[in-house]
Structures are given as C-alpha cells and as structure tokens.
C-alpha cells in the first residue's frame, strides 16, 4: 500500500477544515429550517411539509392493504366509530355504581358528554366531536319490557337519575335483561357501568378526554372512580409519550455517550467532535424525515436514538487509533492521514453493512418499519460522510500543543489499563483453548435452539403502556367487569349463489302454485287462475332475462299493468300477486331468514364458550329480545321466531324506538350483510388469532345457510394481520440482510471463507438472543421482530474490524500465534469501546415510558454487547483452528 495515497475526500478535509465545518453546519441548519418553519408557521410555509404525528395503529398496514380497506369499508357501512369509553366503578358501595348518587353522576356525565361538540374548523356548518345519537349510556338507550296487563313498554332505560336505592337497582335489573346492554353498558357482575362515546374523528379524543376529566374532578371523593380508555385515547396518549421518549431518551443517550467517550479519551476538545457528529446526523435525518412528508410514528420516533450511537462508532475507531498513534508521530496531519488510510476500508464496509441491515427493513410490508429502516440508513450514510470529512477536519482545528500529552505516551500499543490487560489475557486464553471456546459456543447454540423453539409470537398494543399507566389500569378494571373491551367484528354475507335463473324460475312457479291455492282457501276468488297466469308469464320470460332481478321486474311490470285496469273483484288477487313478487324480492334479505339468525345465534353461543370471548352481539339478540317481550316476556320465548315475516315484524317493532338506527350497526338496510360484534377480554394477538382459527373451523364443521361467508375486521383483528405480515416480512428481511452482508464480506475479504467467517459471530449472537427471548418467555412482538434484521448489519461491524485488522497484522507478523497479542491490543480495544458505546448508548431507551422502547433498548444493547463478545471469542478461536486454510495463499505467496 502506498503510504501517501489518501482518499481525496479525506485529504481535502484535512487541507480545508474550515470549509468542511461550514458546509456541514449550513446544510444541517438548512434541513432544520425546512422542517421547522412549516411546523411553526404552517400558513406561511404551506408548500412545505410540517411535522406530523401519527399514532394510528392502523397505519402499521399500508392504506391499500385489503384487510384495512375492508375494515374501513365496514366501519362505514355499519356506521361504526372510534369510541372513548368511560368505565365507572364504585368500590365503596356494596351495589357498586347502582346507587342514586353514582347514577346521578353518570346521568350528568352523559348529558355533559352530549355537549362535547364543536364547530368543525374546516366547515363551520358542521359539528364535530361526540356523536350524540350513538352514545351508549343508561340514560340514552332504550329499554323494552312488560308494562303490565299484556302491555309492552318501550322507554328510555334511565330517563332521569333514580332517587331511591330501589329505583337504582331497578335500572340494573332492566338493563341486565337486555342482552345488548348486559356486559356492555351494565357489567355482568352488576357493579359497574360503561359509557361509550363515539367520535366523529378519533383525533378529538384528547379534547374529549380533557373535558371529561375536568367534569369528573367535581366528584372527587364521592367514591366513584372513572376510567377513561378506548383506542383513540390510547393513541393520543401514545403521541404524547412518544415525544417524552424523544425528549428524555435521546438527550440522555447523548449524555451517556459523552460520558463514555470522556472515560475513554479524557480529552474534551477531542470528544466534542463525535458529539457534534451525532447531533448533526440525527437532526439532519429527522429534518429529512419531516421534509419528505413522513410522520413521527412509534418507529420513526426512535430514529435519533438509533443514529446517535451508530454515528459515533467510526469516530471512535478514528479517535482510538489516533489516540494510539499520535505519540509515535507527534504530527496531527500525518497521524490522521495514516489513521484514515488504514481505517477507510473497514469503515466503508461497516457503514455499508449497517445500511444494508437497516435497508433490509424495506422488505417488510409494514410502512412505518420501512420508513424507520430507510431513514436510519440515510442517517448512517450521513454519519459515514461526515466522519471521514468532519472528524479529520476537526482534528486539524486542534492546535498541536494541545495534543502534546494526548494518547499513549510510550507509543507502544501495550497499555497497562484494566481493559487492555483483560483483553490481552483473553487473547492468550483463547489461543490456547480454541476448541473449548467453540465447544462452549456449540452448547450455547443448542440451548439457543431450544429457546427459539419456545418462542411465542404475540403482541398487544395496550401492553405497550407500562402496567401502572392509567390506560392499563382502565383496561384491567373494565375487562374485570365487562364482557371485554377488545372489539373484533365478524362480517357475514351470503356466498355466491349457484342457482341459475331457470332453476329459480322453476322454484318460483312452484311457490306461485302454492300461494294461489292458499289464497283460494282463504276465499280469494280466481286466485288459482291468476297465479297460474303469472306462472305462464314466468315460463315465457325466463329465457329472455339475465338474472333473477330482471325476471321479477318483468313480472312486476306485468302485474302493474293489470292492476291499472282490473275490476274491483280481481283487484284483490292482483294486489296479492304484487305482494307475492315483493316477497320474492325479499327472499334475498337473508338477515330476516330464521335459519340465518339461528345459525348466528348458535355461532354466538360457540363464541362465548371460548375463553377469551366475553360477549358477542348481533341482530339475532335484537330479534330474540323483542320477540320475548312481545310474547309476555317469557324466558322460553327468547328465541328466533319461525318465519322471516315474524322476524321482519319484530324488527320493525324494535324500530319504533328512540334509536331505530341502532339496528344498522348490525345489519345493512338491505338485510344482505350483517356483523357479529365480538368482545374479547384480551387484546393479545395470539388470542384473537386463536378465535379466528376456531371460528374458521366452526364454519367448516357447520355449513352455513346461503353459504354465508365470514370475514373479520376491527382493530383487534388488524393487529393480528400486521403482526403476521411483520413476522413473515422479518424472516425475509433477516434472510435478505444475511445474504447481502455475506456478499459484502466476501467482496471485502475477496474470499468466501473469510466472508463466511465474518458472519459467524453475529449469527451466533442473533441465535442466542432469540433463544434467550424464547427461554425467558418474552413475547416475540413488534420491537423484537424489527431488531433481528437490523442488528445483523450493525453487529457485523466488530467482525469486519477484527478480521481486517487481523489480516493486516498477520501480514506484518507472519503467523497467527505472534499476531494474536497485537490483535488483542488496539483493535480489540476499539471493538470493546464500540461495543460499550453502542450497547450502553441504547440503554437510555429504558427511561422511555412505553414498553416497546424499553424492549428495543434492552435487546439491542444485549445484541450489540453480545456480538462484541462473540466476535472477540469466536473469531480468534476459529482463526486459530483454521489458520492453514485462511492464510494458505499468504503462506504460499
């Protein structure tokens, strides 16, 4: 190698340090301004993208993902909205909230919630906020009951707060008789009440919650406890906590890195450089993220804390080397050029592998994960660029005399520090016990394999909050009392009909004949003749029409023509004929058919028999309730009536209420689609997935009428889907990044064997870490999944440095035995420092209030530290054993 051939970029930076510093400063400032200005003055800078926060878990799937499209479609067709849920309990009263005082508060709170609407800032004509007509609360839902003397009574459940304890208990008794209310509004244990406040837009939940909290504060000390939860609330809280994370953990990481660097180098003027670098890279990357219109999301909010420790890694290598080399040369320019020259290639490759690791996340189908991977990759590139330009430039700013007593005074790589002594001893031990190290690794791998077999794939966004978080507490309290706060919906729709028009026509002719004779028996004259006439019409029309609807239209037109000019006598028959055609049309209204409702009813019974399902609701519950009350409220009448007409008439009776529109949350007005609302007591993805499996099996075992199809939606289900996609996507990303890194290593070392060698420690690390995850029973969740792929690119860095320096040194010393000691001097120290910096650098994530951040912090620290250890243990052991193969060429040449 030519000593004087430095990289032109490095050389330029060394010669023009001022320009480099200015360019870096100004470009970063520009990015910050471009992001900041539209965020602070959105009106003035409306062509630029302002900072946007995204806490919507749906966005874990891309907007055109079929599950999500289906979810949103169904939310619309069944007018289902995001809700704030207020759970009310009163542990100090033996009847819970069923006492006059508590019910008065609940009544007042409901009235108050109705007023939580505001003029839409975009359209002042429109009101936004709580959707009054869909609120579920005792005072705004209908009760249906016996009114004495065979009278059925439809009225508000609790029109005004009761004044006596008896009345309070009566409210509970009434509500518990109504399946739609029991376990939803009134708890099954009869102690708690939940209010459901649907929102026009979930982003108003913060406003609504604040207003509710203020109102609730009036009743402090009354014994009533109010728990506000619901997905929108969780999301908003999430947004706030995300900023906490960025505001606490990121600066804390800076501080930790600073202290570590101080400990390593004890030279403030020097370690300022990597600190500036870390700052510049994270700010510039976040700036780019905002400028490009991406959002701050649970994933992207971690970008700064990822970039900071990674950004300083290369700088640490440079400083480490500079630290060791400076006293030999006593010339900063010559030293930095020397250091840069022999670090250039490993730095380039470590950067490329890191970029590859993060970029591999682009292979997952989860948009926020893609953004996270992409922007860290960009940040890592920036870090590399400024490392090879700004760090040398910065060193040129330090006056030579200030460096006089910097670094190893002796100029000898041997040092008496604890780390150095430990490392050099390690090197010797490994050289002598190479086989033992590998056996140990093998044992660890076997244990790891068992651990991996125990891995439990599961996630639950509510558990992203700490256990003592108000949302977790609300979640716990509500799920103790109610049928479950995790909602999933099962959409039911008729399957494709295989019946041809001809077959249908034949059936209809049959029915015409029957109806004709039925009418004849009822005394309608000429009914057989006219219905026979219709049957002929059907026979004539059938070949000319495309489908059933067209056939009915033809028939209806014919009847209307007759109706216009018939005598009074035959009018009755023709009217009956028209009625017949209408009833034929209604045969498609399958959610009025008793067999469909019975099927749903049975399915619901099956659902609640499952452990995690607390309750389910459907139109079948409505029909059964109304039917029972029409039949004197007898328990045995709590069933689906026997004809579609009876169902239709029960439903129209139900709709004579204050809230006829409630029905349309369960079925569409054409009675062609329906939903079953399933309340789960657990939001764990594995529980939802199990329910999904069982229901699928149920449909297989119990063929549904009309070949009913079933398909899930609702957020609890969406979570399962994105988890599945994440797990599958991560496997691809992991494999992808492994291959890419392996190829890079092979290119770097110009040898497949060496390339493969470089992959071993990180493969072992990832293997063991995931084994540990399985062993300790930590769920394989979103953060754990994300870490696997990206950690490959990061942890291969040690192997690159170790192997490339080993090769360089071996050239110098001729054989491995003599080289070991030198490898375990400066190179091992740099690796150790790196491992400590990145490892410890991520630990401030533990201070973040959300569990996924803590998980990321602890696992990435564990991976990086373990990768450092395995690199320093396994690589020298392998080289010791494989020396003849690895260095064959060198020996020969």
């Amino acid at each position: 190698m030519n000593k004087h051939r430095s990289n032109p970029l490095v050389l330029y930076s060394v010669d023009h340090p001022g320009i480099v510093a200015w360019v870096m400063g100004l470009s970063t400032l520009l990015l910050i301004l471009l992001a900041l200005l539209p965020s602070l003055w959105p009106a003035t800078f409306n062509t630029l993208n302002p900072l946007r926060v995204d806490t919507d878990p749906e966005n874990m799937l891309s907007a055109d993902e079929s599950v999500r499209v289906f979810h949103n479609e169904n939310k619309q067709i069944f007018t289902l909205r995001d809700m704030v849920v207020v759970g009310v309990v009163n542990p100090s009263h033996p009847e819970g909230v069923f006492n006059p005082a508590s019910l008065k508060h609940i009544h007042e709170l409901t009235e108050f919630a109705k007023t939580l609407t505001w003029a839409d800032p975009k359209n002042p004509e429109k009101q936004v906020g709580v959707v009054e007509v869909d609120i579920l609360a005792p005072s705004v839902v209908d009760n249906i009951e016996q009114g004495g003397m065979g009278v059925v009574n439809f009225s508000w459940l609790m029109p005004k707060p009761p004044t006596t304890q008896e009345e309070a208990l009566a409210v509970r008794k009434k509500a518990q008789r109504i399946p739609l209310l029991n376990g939803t509004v009134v708890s099954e244990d009869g102690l708690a009440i939940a209010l459901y406040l649907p929102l026009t837009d979930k982003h108003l939940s913060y406003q609504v919650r604040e207003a509710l909290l203020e109102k609730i504060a009036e009743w402090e000390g009354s014994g009533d406890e109010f728990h506000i939860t619901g997905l929108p609330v969780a999301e908003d809280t999430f947004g706030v906590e995300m900023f906490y994370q960025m505001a606490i953990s990121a600066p804390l990481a800076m501080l930790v890195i600073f202290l570590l660097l101080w400990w390593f180098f004890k030279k403030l003027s020097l370690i300022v450089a990597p600190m500036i670098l870390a700052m510049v890279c994270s700010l510039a990357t976040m700036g780019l993220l905002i400028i490009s219109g991406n959002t701050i999301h649970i994933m992207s909010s971690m970008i700064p804390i990822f970039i900071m420790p990674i950004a300083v890694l290369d700088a640490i290598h440079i400083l480490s080397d500079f630290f060791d080399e400076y006293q030999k040369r006593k010339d900063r320019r010559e030293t930095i050029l020397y250091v840069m020259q022999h670090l250039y290639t490993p730095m380039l490759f470590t950067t490329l592998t890191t970029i590859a690791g993060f970029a591999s996340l682009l292979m997952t189908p989860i948009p926020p994960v893609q953004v996270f991977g992409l922007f860290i990759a960009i940040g890592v590139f920036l870090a590399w660029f400024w490392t090879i330009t700004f760090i040398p430039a910065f060193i040129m700013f330090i006056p030579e005399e200030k460096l006089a007593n910097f670094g190893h005074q002796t100029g000898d790589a041997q040092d008496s520090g604890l780390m150095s002594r430990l490392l050099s001893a390690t090197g010797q031990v490994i050289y002598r016990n190479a086989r033992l190290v590998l056996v140990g690794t093998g044992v660890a791998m076997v244990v790891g394999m068992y651990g991996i077999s125990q891995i439990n794939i599961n996630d639950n966004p509510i558990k992203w909050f700490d256990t003592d978080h108000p949302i977790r507490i609300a979640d716990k309290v509500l799920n103790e009392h109610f049928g479950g706060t995790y909602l999933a919906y099962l959409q039911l729709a008729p399957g494709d009909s295989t019946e041809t028009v001809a077959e249908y026509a034949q059936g209809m002719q049959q029915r015409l004949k029957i109806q004709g004779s039925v009418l004849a028996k009822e005394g309608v004259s000429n009914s057989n003749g006219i219905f026979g006439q219709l049957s002929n019409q059907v026979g004539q029309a059938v070949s000319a029409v495309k489908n059933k609807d067209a056939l009915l239209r033809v028939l209806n037109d014919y009847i209307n023509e007759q109706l216009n000019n018939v005598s009074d006598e035959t009018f009755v028959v023709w009217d009956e004929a028209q009625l017949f055609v209408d009833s034929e049309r209604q045969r498609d209204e399958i959610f009025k058919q008793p067999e469909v409702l019975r099927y749903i009813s049975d399915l619901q019974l099956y659902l609640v028999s499952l452990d995690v399902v607390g309750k389910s609701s459907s139109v079948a519950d409505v029909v059964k309730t109304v039917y029972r009350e029409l039949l004197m409220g007898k328990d045995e009448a709590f069933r689906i009536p026997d004809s579609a007409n009876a169902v239709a008439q029960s439903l129209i009776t139900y709709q004579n209420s204050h809230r006829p529109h409630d029905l349309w949350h369960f079925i569409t007005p054409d009675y062609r689609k329906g939903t079953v609302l399933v309340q789960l007591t657990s939001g764990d993805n594995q529980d939802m997935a199990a329910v999904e499996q069982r229901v699928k099996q149920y449909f297989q075992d119990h063929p549904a009428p009309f070949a009913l199809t079933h398909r899930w939606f609702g957020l609890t289900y969406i979570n399962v889907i994105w988890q599945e996609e994440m797990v599958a996507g991560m496997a691809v990303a992991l494999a992808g990044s492994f291959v890419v890194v392996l190829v890079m290593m092979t290119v770097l070392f110009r040898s497949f064997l060496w390339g493969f060698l470089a992959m071993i420690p990180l493969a072992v690390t990832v293997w063991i870490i995931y084994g540990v995850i399985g062993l300790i029973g930590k769920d394989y969740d979103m953060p754990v999944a994300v870490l696997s792929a990206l950690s490959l690119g990061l942890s291969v860095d040690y192997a690159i440095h170790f192997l490339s320096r080993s090769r360089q040194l071996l050239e110098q010393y001729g054989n491995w035995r003599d080289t070991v000691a030198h490898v375990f001097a400066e190179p091992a120290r740099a690796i150790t420092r790196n491992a400590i910096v990145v490892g410890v650098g991520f630990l401030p994530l533990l201070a973040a209030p959300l569990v996924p951040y803590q998980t990321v912090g602890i696992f990435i620290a564990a991976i990086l530290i373990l990768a450092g250890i395995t690199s320093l243990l396994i690589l020298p052991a392998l080289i010791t054993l494989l020396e003849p193969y690895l260095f064959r060429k060198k020996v020969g040449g």
Partner: protein
Amino acid sequence: MRIFRQIATLLLPLFFLLPLMASAVPTVDEIVQRSNMTTYYQGQDGRVQVEMMITDSQGRERQRRLTILRIDEAKSDVVEGQAYQGGQKFYVYFHRPADVSKMAFLVWKHLEQDDDRWLYLPALDLVKRIAATDKRTSFVGSDFFYEDVSGRRLDEDNHELVETTNSYYVIKNTPKDLAGVEFSYYTMFIHKQSYIPVQVEYYDKAGVKYRVAKALGVKTIQGYPTVTKASIDNLKIGSKTVMEYTDVEYDIGLDDALFTERYLRKAPRQQLR
C-alpha cells in the same frame, strides 16, 4: 246617479280597508290553533295512501307503503273556541314491504291522558298494546315521530310569534316541560294564507338545529289545503324520510267501529285500498 256616487264615496274606503283587515295580524293563539286544525283536523275523517322513503346518510333507501285512516271525535272544523279539537283515532295499515304487509297500528289520541296504542303483527298472530307515554319515538323506523303523525298538544308548549314575513308567521315554540323532549324549542314557518307549517326547525339543548320538517307539496283537496309531500331530515344522523300522500280523501264517513282492536286482525280492506 247622485245616490250611486254617494254610495260609491261611502264604499270606497272599504275597498282599501278590506285587504288591510284581511292582513291584520292574528294573535299567536289564533295562528297556532289554525295551523293545528289545518295540519291534523281537516274534515271529520280522512284517508290517505302513504309512500314512505327512508334514505340514510349513505343514500341507502328503504320504502314502505301504508294507508292511514283518521276519525275525529269533535265533529267540527271551527277554530273559534277550539271546537275542532278533541280526541282522534288513527288506523295505520301496512301494504309493503311484503314481509310487514297486513301489519297494523291503532292509535287513540287523547288530549287529557296518554294515548292508547295497539299493534297487530300478522306473522305472530298477535295484537299487542304498546305503552305510549313517549310520543317522540320513531314512527316505524322512519325519521317521523308518532307525534309528527298524530300531532303535538298545543298546551305542551309556549308559543311566541317571533317574526312575520311576507308569506309566513314565524312561531317559536318552547316546551313547558323540557324533561320529556329532546329539543329545547322549535320554530314553525306557517304559511299566512293556508296556515300550513311549511317548515319546522328543531333545536337541541345546545341550541343547534338538528331536525327539519318540510312540506314539499301542497294541494287543495275538497277545499282543504293539504300537504301532499312532506319530509323530515335528521341532521344528527344524516337520514331523511319523505312521505308522499296520494288519494287523499276527507269526510268519507268512516265508521268509528273500524278503529277498534277487532279490526286490527280483520282489516277493513274496502277502506284501505
């Protein structure tokens, strides 16, 4: 000649006075009584075929066809002294959709007590009495309330003439008892000539307009100004119901006996066609 001129001179001012007298503003009470009579009490009985179209916020439509028969207790249409007012009976019979055909409601509207309401469900072969303490519930799933069909008692509200425009008296009606109703007040735009409330706007307790009733078509039938098409918009839910009234007939001499439980099961087909 002289005498004619004298008469003319005497009568001339009357010609100017006549229109003035006609447009003299009636009292609030007169306006609401007249309007009430026009809307609910014209003739001693009546029959109407109703085409009902309910359209939800997503444009999904449901159709119903029914016949409403009405008979008044008070056999008078005289507004003075409120002679027209009294109990009424309504018979509501369903034709379509097919699965609710032959279903029937019977309502006995009383001025001094809660109404009586019966329901006949042919598929269940069941006549059921329905408690009707609350008349502001949906009329068969539509945006109309029972009260919109049978009328709201005038003495339940305080009436106030807030404006007189070229064509309308604008009356603000505030309920005496806020507890039983979902509105805080409603404003009626009553047509000056016909006394038909052309538009009624309901305001909720936050003062937001949430419900609008409109008369979309008016015809004079048998000398009675009659609404032939009416709609109610529920602005909170976004749904709308339009009722079209055809074959309106008054004073057809309906038998009071038809309006009994007995005729629920055995519908008077002749009267319903």
